C-alpha cells in the first residue's frame, strides 16, 4: 500500500497543506475550553458582563476561523485525493497495457477489472479520509493533552496515562478485527459463488437432482458467514464501551486530583471545567476515529491488491531498437521450438521445426488441446518460446521491436471480439490512417462487404460492446477484415472461419491469396479448410506428428487420415470432394 504513495508526488503541497489547516482548525477548537474557563473564572466570578460577551464573541470568532481553516483543508484534501487516484489509475492502466499474455493469464481479467474499478475507488476514499479526518484525531487528542499541561501539570498527568491506554484499546481491537473482516469477506465470496453457480448451472443441478444438497450446502455456508459476522461484531462492538469507560474513569481521577489542586488554590474552578472539557473532547474524537478505522483498513487492504498488480512485471523484454535486416529467404522459421506455460505440468509444444517461404500457406490441424493456438501465438511473440527459436525473415522474434512485429503480423483470434463504436472505428484498429478504399478492399477480401451493405449506415453503423448486434459469422468476417486492413506480411487465422460455411470460407482463402500475398497461417479443426495448404502441420499432444502436403499426409500420417476420414468418410468419397 505505502509504495503507492509515490503517486502523491505532484500533490506534495496539498498533502502538507490539508493536514496543516486541519491542525489549525483543531488548534482553534482547543482554545474554546480556555475561553470558557475565562468566562467562569473572570466573568462569573467578577460579575463582569462585558467580559462574558467579549469572550462569547471570541468563541464565535474562533468557530468562524475554524470553519475557514477546515474548508481550506477539505479543498486541498479533495484535490490531493482525486489527483492521486487519477494518477494511480492512469499508471495502473498503463501498467496493464504493458503486461504480456503470460501475466494476463495469471492475473485473470476479472481480477484486473475489479482492482481497476472498485479497489482503486476504495483507496481514493481512504486517502481522502486520512487527509481530512484521520490526521485531525491525533492532533485533537494530543493537543488536548498539551492544553491540559498548560493549565496544570499534575492534573494533566492523568492524560498521559489515559492516551496510551486508549491507543492500545483502539489499535488492539483494530488489529484483531482486520483479519476477521477479511474472513467475513471470504465467507461472503463463498455465498456469492454458490448463488451464482446455482443460477448459471440451474439446468445441470436440476438434471442431477441436486437441489436439496445445494440448499444444504448453501445453508452451511450462510451459517458460517453469520457466525463470523456475529463474532466480529462482538469484538468490534467492544470499542465504544471500553473507550467510554476509560475516558470517564480518567475524568473521575481528573476531578479528584483537580479538586485537590483547587483546594490547594493551585487552579480555579473554571480551569477544572476546562480540564474536564478537554477529556470529553478526546472521547468525542475517539468515537469518530473508531467509525473511520474500518474504512481505512479496507482502503489499506485494497491498496495492497493494487500494489500486487504493480509488482507483476511483463516477462517480455522489448529492448530491440531497430528492425533487423532480412537475412533469409524464409518468412517464418521454427527451430526445435518448445513451449511450457507458466505453472504448467508439461510442455504444450515440443520439438517443432519448420520453414515457410513468403506467400505460402500453412495449415495447422489437430485435436482439442493439441497446441495449435500455442504454436501460432509464438509468431507475434504473444508468448516466449521456452526452448528453441522462432525466426522471422531470418532473425529471432526477440530482435524485433514488439510494436513493429505486431504491425507486420495480422492476427484473427478464435474469439471474434469487436469493440463498441462503429464498423469503421473497429476496422481502423488495423490501420489508424486507412483510406475509404483500403477499408472497402479489406471488407471485400474478408467476404464482409455484404455485412456492411446490409446496414443502413454502412461503415458508420454502430457496433455494440462485444459486437452483440452481429451474428457469429458476421463478427468473424469483420475481425478478418480488421486484420486485413493493414495488409500484413503474415496473417494468422486462428480457427476464425469456423462459423462460415464451406463455400464462403473457400472464397475467403482465395481472395486473401490473390489480394495480399501474405504468408498465411490457418488453424482449423476442419480438414477442408487446410487441405490445399502448401504445408500442413498435424499436431497431437504438442508434438508435430505429421508435416507435409495433403496427399503426402494421407499416405504417411495416421492421425491426419483419421481426422480427414472423420469428416469426409473413407477413401473414395474423399477424393470426390
Amino acid at each position: 500500500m505505502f509504495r503507492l504513495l509515490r503517486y502523491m508526488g505532484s500533490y506534495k503541497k496539498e498533502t502538507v497543506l490539508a493536514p496543516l489547516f486541519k491542525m489549525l482548525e483543531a488548534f482553534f477548537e482547543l482554545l474554546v475550553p480556555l475561553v470558557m474557563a475565562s468566562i467562569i473564572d473572570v466573568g462569573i466570578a467578577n460579575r463582569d458582563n462585558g467580559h462574558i460577551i467579549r469572550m462569547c464573541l471570541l468563541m464565535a470568532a474562533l468557530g468562524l476561523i475554524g470553519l475557514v481553516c477546515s474548508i481550506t483543508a477539505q479543498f486541498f484534501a479533495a484535490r490531493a485525493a482525486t489527483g492521486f487516484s487519477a494518477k494511480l489509475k492512469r499508471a495502473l492502466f498503463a501498467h496493464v497495457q504493458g503486461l504480456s499474455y503470460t501475466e494476463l493469464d495469471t492475473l485473470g481479467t476479472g481480477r484486473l477489472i475489479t482492482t481497476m474499478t472498485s479497489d482503486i475507488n476504495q483507496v481514493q476514499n481512504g486517502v481522502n479520509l486520512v487527509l481530512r479526518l484521520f490526521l485531525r484525531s491525533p492532533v485533537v487528542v494530543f493537543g488536548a493533552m498539551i492544553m491540559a499541561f498548560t493549565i496544570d501539570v499534575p492534573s494533566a498527568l492523568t492524560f498521559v496515562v489515559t492516551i496510551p491506554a486508549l491507543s492500545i484499546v483502539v489499535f488492539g481491537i483494530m488489529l484483531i478485527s482486520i483479519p476477521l473482516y477479511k474472513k467475513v469477506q471470504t465467507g461472503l465470496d463463498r455465498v456469492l459463488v454458490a448463488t451464482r453457480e446455482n443460477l448459471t448451472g440451474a439446468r445441470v443441478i436440476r438434471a442431477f437432482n441436486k437441489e436439496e444438497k445445494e440448499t444444504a450446502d448453501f445453508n452451511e455456508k450462510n451459517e458460517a458467514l453469520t457466525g463470523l459476522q456475529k463474532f466480529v461484531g462482538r469484538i468490534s462492538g467492544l470499542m465504544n464501551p471500553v473507550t467510554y469507560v476509560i475516558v470517564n474513569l480518567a475524568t473521575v481521577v481528573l476531578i479528584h486530583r483537580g479538586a485537590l489542586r483547587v483546594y490547594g488554590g493551585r487552579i480555579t474552578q473554571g480551569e477544572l471545567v476546562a480540564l474536564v472539557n478537554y477529556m470529553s473532547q478526546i472521547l468525542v474524537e475517539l468515537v469518530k476515529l473508531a467509525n473511520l478505522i474500518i474504512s481505512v483498513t479496507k482502503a489499506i487492504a485494497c491498496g495492497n491488491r493494487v500494489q500486487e498488480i504493480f509488482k507483476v512485471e511483463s516477462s517480455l523484454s522489448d529492448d530491440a531498437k531497430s528492425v533487423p535486416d532480412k537475412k533469409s529467404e524464409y518468412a517464418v522459421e521454427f527451430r526445435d521450438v518448445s513451449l511450457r506455460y507458466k505453472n504448467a505440468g508439461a510442455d504444450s509444444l515440443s520439438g517443432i521445426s519448420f520453414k515457410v517461404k513468403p506467400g505460402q500457406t500453412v495449415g495447422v490441424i489437430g485435436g482439442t488441446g493439441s497446441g495449435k493456438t500455442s504454436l501460432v501465438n509464438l509468431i507475434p511473440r504473444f508468448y516466449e518460446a521456452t526452448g528453441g527459436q522462432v525466426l522471422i525473415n531470418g532473425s529471432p522474434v526477440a530482435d524485433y521491436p514488439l510494436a513493429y512485429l505486431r504491425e507486420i503480423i495480422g492476427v484473427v483470434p478464435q474469439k471474434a471480439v469487436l469493440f463498441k463504436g462503429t464498423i469503421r472505428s473497429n476496422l481502423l484498429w488495423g490501420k489508424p490512417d486507412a483510406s475509404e478504399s483500403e477499408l472497402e478492399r479489406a471488407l471485400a477480401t474478408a467476404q464482409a462487404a455484404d455485412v456492411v451493405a446490409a446496414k443502413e449506415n454502412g461503415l458508420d453503423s454502430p457496433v455494440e460492446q462485444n459486437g452483440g448486434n452481429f451474428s457469429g459469422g458476421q463478427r468473424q468476417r469483420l475481425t478478418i477484415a480488421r486484420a486485413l486492413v493493414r495488409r500484413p506480411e503474415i496473417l494468422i487465422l486462428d480457427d476464425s472461419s469456423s462459423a462460415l460455411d464451406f463455400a464462403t470460407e473457400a472464397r475467403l482463402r482465395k481472395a486473401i491469396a490473390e489480394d495480399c500475398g501474405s504468408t498465411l497461417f490457418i488453424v482449423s479443426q476442419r480438414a477442408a479448410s487446410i487441405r490445399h495448404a502448401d504445408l500442413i502441420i498435424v499436431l497431437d499432444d504438442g508434438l508435430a506428428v505429421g508435416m507435409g502436403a495433403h496427399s503426402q499426409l494421407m499416405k504417411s500420417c495416421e492421425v491426419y487420415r483419421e481426422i480427414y476420414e472423420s469428416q469426409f468418410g473413407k477413401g473414395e468419397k474423399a477424393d470426390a470432394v
Partner: protein
Amino acid sequence: MPSKTKTLSKILKYIGIYKLYLIFSTLLAAASVGLTLYVPILIGDAVDLAVDKGLVDFEGLGVILLRIAVVVAVTALLQWLMNVCNNRLTYNVVRDVRRDAFAKIEILPLKYIDSHPTGEIVSRVIADVDQFADGLLMGFTQLFTGVVTILGTLGFMLSINVGISLVVILITPVSLFVAAFIAKMTFSMFKLQSETRGEQTSLIDEMVGSQKVVQAFGRQAQVQEEFDGINDRLEKCSLRAVFYSSITNPGTRFVNSLVYTGVGLTGAIAALRGGISVGQLSCFLSYANQYTKPFNEISGVVTELQNALACAARIFELIEEEPQIPEPENAVELAAPEGSVGLEHVNFSYEPNQRLIEDMNLSVTPGSRVAIVGPTGCGKTTVINLLMRFYDPVSGRITVDGNDVRDITRGSLRRSYGMVLQDTWLRAGTVRDNIAMAKIDASEEEIIAAAKASHAHSFIKRLPQGYDTVIGEDGGGLSQGQKQLLCITRVMLCLPPMLILDEATSSIDTRTELRIQRAFAKMMEGRTSFIIAHRLSTIMDADTILVMKDGHVIEQGRHDELLAKGGFYADLFNSQYNI
C-alpha cells in the same frame, strides 16, 4: 413496486422471530442512554463541590466520583450487551432472508432464471441483502439511541434551566438545514461523477476484457489516450463532488460551535443572576456537545434506512416469485423406465404471442436413437427443455413409459436422463468433484474408467494435480473442448437409462468426437437417446432423424430415406459436404 409499508411489515415478520432480542435491545438502549446522560450531571455536581481554594467538600466528592465510576461501568456493559443483541438480531434476520432467497432460487421455474440476468439475481442475494443489513444495523444502533438521546437531553436540560434549553433548541435545526442544503447542492455533481465513473468502468471492462486483442493490434497507446481523456474528466468532476460534499462536516461543526457559544453566553448570564451553578453550566456545555451529534447522525441514518428499504423490497420480490408447479401428491416414482417417450399434440412458446412448437407428435420406442436437426432457432433445444421438464408444454402432453411427465416426480424423471448440453457448466472445485457430481460415492476406479471412456483421462492426467486440480468457477483455465469432455465424463459415470446430447461435442475435434461417439454408442445400446447436432456426419446412423424448421417437424425418417427424398434434409446434408 410494493408499497413501503408492505415491505416494512414483511421485514417485521422476519424480525418478529427474534422479538426477545428486539425487546432487550430497546430496554438496554433506553437504560444506557439514560445513564449516559446522567454522567454529565454527576460531573457537574462534582465540579460544584470544588469551588475555590480551601472550599472543597472531599467527602461529598468521593461519594459522587464513586457513583460516576459505577454508572459508567454499568453503562458500558449495557452498551456492549445492546451491541451484541443488535448484531445477533441483524445477522440472524439477514441469514434467514438469504436462506429463503436461495431456497426460492432452487424452485424457481427456469423461465424466470432464463429471462433474468444472473448478475441481477446475484446482486439481490448478495449486495442488496448486505445493504439491507447495514441499514438495519445502523437503524437499530443509531436511530433509536439517537432519538432517545435527543429526547433525554432535552428533558434533562429543561429540568435544569428552561431559558438555556430554548437557545439550544432554536439554534440546532440550523445545522440540519445546512446539511440538507449542501446535500441538495451536490446531488448533480455526484450524479455526474457516477456517470463518468460508469463510462470509465465500461471502458476498462471492454479493453482489459480483450487486452490480448488490444496488444495484438498494438493499440495500447490509443486506448491509453482514450482512458486518460475519461480519467481527466473524472478527476475534475470528482474533485468538485468530493470537495462540496465535504463542506457538510465543517458547516455543521460551525453551527455546533454557535450552539456552544449560545449556551456559554446565556449560561454565564444566568449564573451571574444565580439561576444556575458553575457545575450546572459545565453540564449544559457537555449536553450542548452531545445534543447536536445525534441530529447529524440521524439524517445519515434516514437515507441509509430508505436505501435499505428499497433493497429489502427487491429481495422480497425475488422471495415471493411464483415457484414452479408443485408435484401432485400421488406423483409416480419412475424406477427403471424402459424408455418409450411420446409427444402428443404438444404446443409450446416462450412468449405467449410468439408460437414456437406447434402440434408436435412423436413416438419413440425404447432403445432407439433419435436425432434432431434443423437451422438455428427452429426449436431443437426447446424439445430438450420439454423432455427434461425444464418447461411445461402450453398444451398437449409428454409421456414416458405411458405416464404423463406431469404425474412423475421431477427427481425420478430427470434421474432417468443423462444430459450433456452445448453450454458446459462446471463449478469451482476439483476435477473429481465435478465428475462425481451425479454419483458422489463413485470410486476412484469408476471415475477413471468414465474419464477414459470420454477420452478426458489423458488431459486430466496432464493437469498440475491430476484429478485433484482445482478449476475455477465455470471451468476457468480449461478450453471449451476440455470442458465438454468433463461434462461427458459426468454422464458416463452415472449411466442413466436415457440420454440427451445437445451439441455435446461441438467444441471437440472430429477425431475425438468420433471416438466418444463410439463409446456412447456402446453405452447407449438398448437405451433411448436424443441427439442434437450441427455436424450431420455424427447422426447419420440414428434410427429416426427429425428435421425441424420453425417449430414444426417437416421431415422424419432414416438418413438414406431422407436423402433419397431430396427434401430439406438432403439440401442441408449436401451444403455441408460440397464445397
